[in-house]
């Protein structure tokens, strides 16, 4: 098992390098010279221009620039925000927590409702419960994140006035209150996905022969389903968890923008619109690294649950 973990970790490193390289090189792909991009298109005198070139070592060879940039990034220096006139880290830092809170809230909803709905539908297949649950899933998956966000605002904030429209609120319970609609918006489509996958997977698992074996030995239905069917059924669900996190990240961007939340996603969009390139680069890097590491975690979880993965990796 340890060898497996180490091997996966080793595999992630080239991926981190390549993706960070891509993020880095966007600066040079953009039309115009890099220093102009970094300045956000402002016109400045030649001395400032040269100062920027020196500061970001834009006269160095390409790969040396990348290496410098990478070293700085790893040690916590992500450049300067031209709009905020502050270090990127200071600008980005405070925004991290709200985004994590939003994502965690949504994840709770996704796992809680998604699994529950899926298991219910899977066990009670072809009964009224299943039809009702499947109907909910269908509606959920037809609504994309920002559409559901807007509709939620329309119905619950504007029309019914149960929830505030925008903003993060002031800490603690107020924060949870403000984050509720955004989290729901973020969670809807993904909950439907998790539920659908769980239902299909459980339906398939219950038809498997080893379930028959367990029944033939006189085990209670609870044990048959709980120990044998569910664990096997979880495997495909874990597989899509990586996907879920990916959409959680991009969904967070949309939701934060929709609800006016002051998180990383909203900052990213603001950065794009104000041409604050350093900020855009930094947040992209942050999200991507997080995504790669999360996927690594999901892989390891998968291997933990399903021994066949570890076995086939051994032979590979």
């Amino acid at each position, binding site marked *: 098992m340890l060898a497996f973990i180490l091997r996966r970790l080793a595999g992630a490193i080239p991926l981190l390098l390549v993706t960070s390289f891509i993020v880095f090189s966007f600066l040079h792909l953009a039309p115009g010279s890099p220093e102009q991009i970094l300045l956000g298109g402002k016109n400045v005198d030649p001395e400032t221009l040269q100062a920027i070139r020196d500061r970001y070592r834009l006269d160095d060879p390409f790969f040396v620039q990348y290496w410098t940039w990478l070293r700085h990034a790893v040690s916590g220096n992500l450049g300067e925000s031209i709009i905020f006139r502050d270090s990127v880290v200071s600008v980005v830092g405070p925004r991290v927590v709200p985004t994590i809170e939003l994502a965690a809230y949504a994840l709770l909803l996704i796992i809680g409702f998604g699994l529950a709905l899926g298991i219910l539908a899977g066990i009670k297949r072809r009964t009224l419960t299943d039809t009702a649950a499947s109907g909910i899933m269908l509606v959920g998956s037809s609504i994309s994140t920002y559409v559901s966000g807007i509709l939620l605002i329309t119905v619950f904030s504007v029309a019914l006035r149960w929830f505030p429209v925008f903003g993060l609120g002031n800490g603690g319970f107020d924060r949870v209150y403000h984050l509720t609609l955004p989290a729901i918006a973020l969670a809807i489509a993904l909950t439907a996905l998790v539920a659908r996958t769980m239902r299909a997977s459980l339906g398939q698992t219950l038809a498997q022969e080893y379930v028959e*074996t367990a029944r*033939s*030995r*006189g085990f*209670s239905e609870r044990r048959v389903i709980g120990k044998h069917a569910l*664990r*096997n059924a979880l495997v495909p669900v874990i597989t899509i968890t990586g996907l879920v996190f990916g959409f959680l990240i991009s969904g967070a961007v949309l939701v934060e923008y929709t609800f006016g939340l002051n998180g990383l996603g909203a900052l990213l969009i603001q950065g794009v619109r104000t041409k604050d390139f350093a900020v855009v680069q930094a947040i992209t890097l942050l999200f991507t690294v997080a995504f790669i590491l999360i996927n690594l975690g999901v892989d390891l979880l998968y291997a933990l649950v399903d*021994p066949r993965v570890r076995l086939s990796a051994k032979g590979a």
Partner: protein
Amino acid sequence: MTPPPLLEVRSVTTEVEIGDRHWPVVDGVSFTIGRGEVVGLVGESGSGKSMTARTILRLLRAEARTRGMILLDGVDLVSLTRRALRGVRARRIAMIFQDPRAHIDPLWTSGDHVTEGLRVNGGLSGAVARARARELLADVGILEAERVLGAYPGELSGGMLQRVMIAGALAAEPELLIADEPTTALDVTVQAEIVAIFDGLRRERELAMLFITHDLELASSLCDRVLVMYAGRVMEEQPTSALFSAPLHPYTAGLLEARPTLETKHVRLSVIPGRPPTPTDPPDGCPIHPRCAFVEPACISAVPPLRQLAGAAFSACRRTEEIRDRLRPEAMAGRG
């Protein structure tokens, strides 16, 4: 006075849902199994033999309907509560299946598979159960018990897995073991080993067995009595040697004839022409009549019942007495 049978199956019919109707896949089947007896259930695919096995343990899905009585020491399994049925499955009847790789949960070790029943139903502690598992593995001929117990199904061969499944079934110390084509998915050499294990078991433990197979030779090597099934019905039942030397039903004779042997020279392999009927389209009268060389008009008008002839012989053919001499293997060989 013969002792009462361990298991008595009385006119059991099982209907399954196909489309929007229910069709019989097991039709009026009756037989008994005595303590320590090995009874073979032989037939082509689709003959209803696996369905019969699952009907005994009530393993079929809720949409299947079962009529008749299945008496285990006088207690009817058909009308048993779920809870009582679980008790029967846990302690009295055990079943092993055709494809061990599909029938053992791939996510748990084989040690878990063997000990699960001991721990859950028998209340044994983990360590005690494990010790018992080692003994059971030895009984089925596995020598490196520790390695096998800690291995996952994916790491073990088919033959090994089948032994593990047998060990798991024996853990419950059942009185009856139902084996549904236990060797079909295995290599021929492994088959012989598994059969040897069964032979040893029935002798040491006085274990009654219902041995289901499509392989006549296999049945002859292990079973005391053999039932031949076709289209959900029993066509013939006899003690093994009698069945093979003097079959009473044309279908049995045809099956025996169809076995290729190394001794005689075959110009063409003998087959029974035609195909078995689907459950949704049963023929009138005797189910084998479209394929039978001895068919008469009376065979089509009514279903012949299973009749008891002298001793422990049963036949579902109307013309048994008339044609039994022509059914002998020597006579059949001359015809092809």
